[in-house]
């Protein structure tokens, strides 16, 4: 067996050029402000129609949280031309699938159909945008369904509340301090009028992007889009509030007891800048450097060599206004959370004081190249990226160019950004613990 010729191969890799297929697309606005992006790919008879609305949990009134996610449910209840209970049936009986998801920044609805049902997909999303039915029976039903969703995802699931607990401490003023599921109490107390107003304000063409991707004929598609979406009235201009957090200057220590766990976890969370900020991309690379793959620094040290951790993970959650970089670990055997914390700190200290090696830098570049090629592997994935890049980054072309940003990041920047954000006095230290044993 040959031994790996890493140093020899290195120069070769530096010269290599990415040959991933470029994603072509066309974009324009309708008169009512709806932004449209078309991506044609006739390789398979499949089409995705999707709408992203620029509304998420951060647009909610602090006294009425959970609305955006609630609408993700409510807007399947029916429209003037689609009866209650028919939505899923129409999709399924035409051979399609559909779903929706909500983040703190945006809500995304989509259908995937065999391409001869393109018009159906366009019609359904236009119905949802034009005249959804928001009534008592729908609100009452979905309010209970959402309670079950919360129980399932948060209250009955081991480690289900780590994100919620971390964000409560990372954000004091910004709406990122609550989760998309929101408060069940707020939802229960909301009136039908509250929901109607929320709909009228945010679910309008001038706050949305429509993406049609896959096996389409662009001219015919444009005509259908004009027919179905053109008549939808423009909504009022949306005024958005801005929220500026005070910097964290001394360590915030927090603790949470989860009745569903036996093994504790340590979570260290840093508040990071908006996802469009170059530093956010640098933090992606730092996150990969520390914990992605078996040769990554934290995995190798804590899990592999010293066998102190069952698992090490890092999460660089970039969002529109701020992000959160969270690194955490679960101990093996007798290892204490303090011990894990100081081990993690040791590795973080290193990136702040020394440049990462040339070889590790090249490894990062190779990983991001691989990720980039894989990110455009399905039509549904491409549709989602186009919508996100347009709406949240204001740059649709990132679908082809984002890799250039990672390529341009230097080792020096990795050190600088680590120094700027990854300081112990700027973070939340969350001890996520089993429920204390009760005398019994």
């Amino acid at each position, binding site marked *: 067996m040959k031994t790996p010729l890493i140093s020899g191969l290195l120069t070769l890799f530096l010269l290599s050029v990415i040959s*991933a297929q470029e994603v072509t697309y066309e974009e324009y606005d309708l008169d009512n402000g709806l932004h449209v992006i078309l991506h044609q790919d006739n390789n398979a008879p499949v089409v995705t129609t999707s709408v992203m609305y620029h509304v998420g949990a951060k647009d909610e009134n602090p006294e009425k949280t959970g609305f955006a996610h609630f609408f993700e449910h409510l807007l399947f209840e029916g429209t003037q031309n689609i009866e209650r209970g028919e939505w899923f049936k129409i999709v399924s009986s035409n051979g399609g699938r559909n779903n929706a998801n909500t983040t703190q920044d945006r809500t995304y609805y989509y259908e995937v159909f065999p391409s001869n049902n393109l018009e159906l997909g366009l019609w359904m999303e236009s119905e949802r945008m034009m005249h959804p039915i928001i009534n008592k029976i729908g609100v009452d039903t979905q309010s209970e369904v959402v309670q079950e969703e919360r129980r399932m995802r948060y209250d009955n699931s081991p480690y289900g509340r780590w994100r919620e607990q971390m964000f409560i401490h990372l954000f004091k003023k910004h709406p990122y301090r609550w989760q998309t599921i929101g408060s069940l109490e707020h939802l229960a107390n909301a009136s039908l009028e509250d929901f109607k107003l929320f709909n009228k304000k945010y679910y309008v063409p001038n706050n949305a992007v429509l993406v049609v991707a896959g096996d389409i004929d662009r001219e015919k598609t444009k005509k259908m889009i004009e027919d179905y979406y053109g008549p939808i009235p423009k909504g009022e201009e949306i005024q958005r509030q801005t929220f500026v957090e005070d910097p964290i200057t001394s360590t915030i220590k927090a603790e949470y007891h989860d009745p569903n766990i036996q093994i504790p976890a340590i979570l260290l969370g840093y508040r990071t800048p908006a996802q469009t900020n170059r530093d956010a991309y640098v933090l992606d690379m730092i996150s990969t450097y520390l914990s992605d793959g078996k040769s990554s620094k934290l995995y190798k040290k804590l899990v592999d060599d010293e066998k102190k951790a069952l698992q090490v993970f890092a999460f660089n959650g970039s969002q529109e206004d701020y992000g959160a970089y969270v690194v955490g670990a679960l101990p093996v055997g007798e290892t204490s959370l303090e011990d894990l914390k100081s081990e993690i700190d040791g590795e973080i200290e290193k990136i702040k004081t020394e440049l990462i090696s040339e070889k590790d830098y090249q490894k990062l570049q190779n990983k991001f190249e691989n990720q980039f090629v894989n990110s455009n592997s399905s039509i549904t994935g491409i549709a989602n990226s186009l919508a996100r890049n347009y709406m949240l980054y204001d740059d649709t072309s990132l679908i082809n160019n984002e890799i250039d940003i990672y390529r341009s990041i230097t080792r020096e920047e990795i050190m600088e950004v680590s120094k700027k954000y990854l300081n112990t006095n700027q973070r939340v230290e969350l001890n996520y613990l089993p429920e204390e044993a009760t005398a019994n």
Partner: protein
Amino acid sequence: MKRLFITLVLGLIAFNVQAQIDRSKIPTPGPAPEINLSEPLHYEMNNGLKVLVVENHKLPRVSIQLLIDNPPVIEGDKAGVSSLTAALLGQGSKSIPKDDFNEEVDFLGARISFGSQSAFAGSLSKYFPRIFELMADSAINPNFTEEEFEKEKQKILTSLKTEEKDVSAISNRVSNALAYGTSHPYGEFVTAESVQNVTLQDVIRFYEDYFVPANAYLVIIGDVDFEQVKGLVEEYFTPWTKAVPPSFQFSKPSNAQYTQINFVDVPNAVQSEVVVENLVDLKMKDEDYLAAILANKILGGGAQARLFLNLREDKAYTYGSYSSIGNDKYAPSTFTASAQVRNMVTDSTVVEILKEIDKIVKTPVTDEELKDAKAKYVGNFVLALERPETIARYALNIETEGLPKDYYKTYLERLNAVTKEDVQKAAQKYMNIDSVRVVVTGKGSEVLENLEKVTFNGKKIPVKFYDKFAKATEKTSY
């Protein structure tokens, strides 16, 4: 590449040539798309390894999958030996130390992972030959060491602890154990004691017995050239020694004798897991396979199905309720219908799920339901064409499930021919309303009282009690 072009008529062909749209009507579909089903290139090596290659040059990447289709294995008092084997594979090879191996795989931006009888790798096409070599070397010449063994053992013991209070994990374990019995490969489970019983020698023996080429398939998909693949396979898989896995008998599991509730008390639960289950003898090659999956689709196969519409959209008991029907050529599989519901409605959920099963067994489905369910499968078939792995999967199924060569070419035609009567017969055969097990995992102090009052079709349903490890136990008093 050998290509087969088939044009299939998917439904009504309709042209909508109106100038004005009428948004009060559902748009009609355009002409059915043409379906092209190609076949992977394949050949077999002398050691028994079968190789399937799907060339697809859309993106510069390749995936490599090694699957070993052995019959299920009983691990007995050493349950966990297969998990440990999986964990110890891919840790380098006899000639490449673990750290160098991990470093190189990561350096190439690639992934290599192992199961106890499988392996997977993915990389950009420019690094494919080297990743192929690394994967083959670590699969055929694994590096089993005492040090790694002890470490992985600790990790498994700790992760068993992480799920001790996990309601879903408990529900899963108990429902399989009760369906199959704990001495069946599908019913046994890993415990701290059984993991402690495993030695490194056991892992090595497991590997030598089962990681053999007789039933192995190597599937390569992506930006490759067939001749190049052939060369690499010859070079790196020829040393894999020809061998057949040992075979042994295991008990044939049987269904409950009458419908019953099997209750597991988990005091920290805020939702109950309700799983209604029975065993089914169903194989893909069976005549009534499509009728059976259509029956399941109508009952609980998605957001348009009866269980979801009843338990979520009508009653709002749950975030979702679904059913599934498995198929297996080696042993019985299961039919299950399940939901996670708030404590208060646990008993009503049991009744509603049983009602839905009873209904589909006793009353024919409607024409519309059948038409819609078929349309969903037609859609799935079309949507799957986007993924290059589909044609590999079809070829593998034909080979491993003993299906006729034209199985997928005639798939839509056969799907279309299924009648309401076929669906009802399949429901009667595979959904055993008179002998289902209803496994409820939840907080006894809040749900048990009502659960013990559940009656169905005029009969009281007896409740039996089990602990978190599926052992019969006494009722707890609250």
